[in-house]
């Protein structure tokens, strides 16, 4: 069933168009990288701030800039990722780094949502053990996702 769906996706006109394209595929790739840059580039400094770095900078205004920027990055990677996947669905689905990346990204998004629902994380006084744990997880998960993503091409 899954095999059939993957084959159908790979045989779709969209996938065939992207496979044959000179510019569309590299452009999509570049947009995916831009999404990763916005996402990791926003989350990393925020996590480090929650872990106690740059204590003189208030967390709330920092979050007001970096959270929307990182969310824009998530939207961009989620919009471009499936299109890149469609070009060679069977190969990517069988790639252990791709499988690991999907699992890690799911955990990282869940971690971010759980932290968001935790009260008072933007307040400097609120950076308790709960918030610090989420920040460490966030750092580890997003860096792992980035690394797994890069390794897809090296399997």
């Amino acid at each position: 069933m899954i095999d059939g769906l993957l084959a159908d996706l790979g045989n779709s006109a969209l996938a065939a168009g992207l496979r044959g394209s000179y510019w569309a595929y590299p452009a999509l790739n570049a947009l995916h990288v831009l999404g990763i840059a916005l996402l990791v580039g926003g989350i990393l400094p925020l996590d480090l701030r929650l872990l106690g770095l740059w204590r003189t900078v208030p967390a709330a205004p920092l979050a007001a800039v970096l959270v929307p920027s990182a969310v824009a990055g998530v939207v961009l990677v989620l919009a471009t990722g499936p299109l890149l996947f469609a070009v060679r669905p069977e190969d990517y689905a069988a790639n252990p780094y791709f499988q690991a990346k999907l699992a890690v990204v799911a955990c990282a998004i869940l971690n971010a949502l759980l932290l968001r629902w935790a009260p008072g994380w933007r307040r400097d006084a609120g950076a308790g053990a709960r918030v610090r744990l989420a920040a460490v997880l966030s750092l580890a998960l997003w860096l792992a996702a980035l690394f797994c993503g890069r390794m897809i091409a090296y399997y």
Partner: protein
Amino acid sequence: MAMRRMVSAAAGALLGMALWAATAAGHHGWRWTEEDHVQLTGVVKSVELGNPHGIVILDVGGEEWRVELGPPARNTRAGIEEGTLVEGMTIVVIGHRSADPAELRLKAERIHVGGVEHNIYPDRD
């Protein structure tokens, strides 16, 4: 102090991952292949020329080899287009095989189709 240790541990882990990535057997480039050239003669079973790079499945005396071509722009420059390689054709492929001897995978530098040479990497010997 604990915080500083945590930050340096994270920096260390990141550096470690970067070094691992730099030394890993890359799929792109030639690092995953052997030094010596290999020549294969086989029958084309399937062809896909598109992004991110072309793949030809070649039947070489009953062994199924995965032959990797270039990205679309490079294949076109080498004169390989849709229809150049067709299922059932016998072709000769010259390139470098995977450094893993158990893996029947070859990165093609040149292919010969019906007496015509297509040089995918003319800048390589």
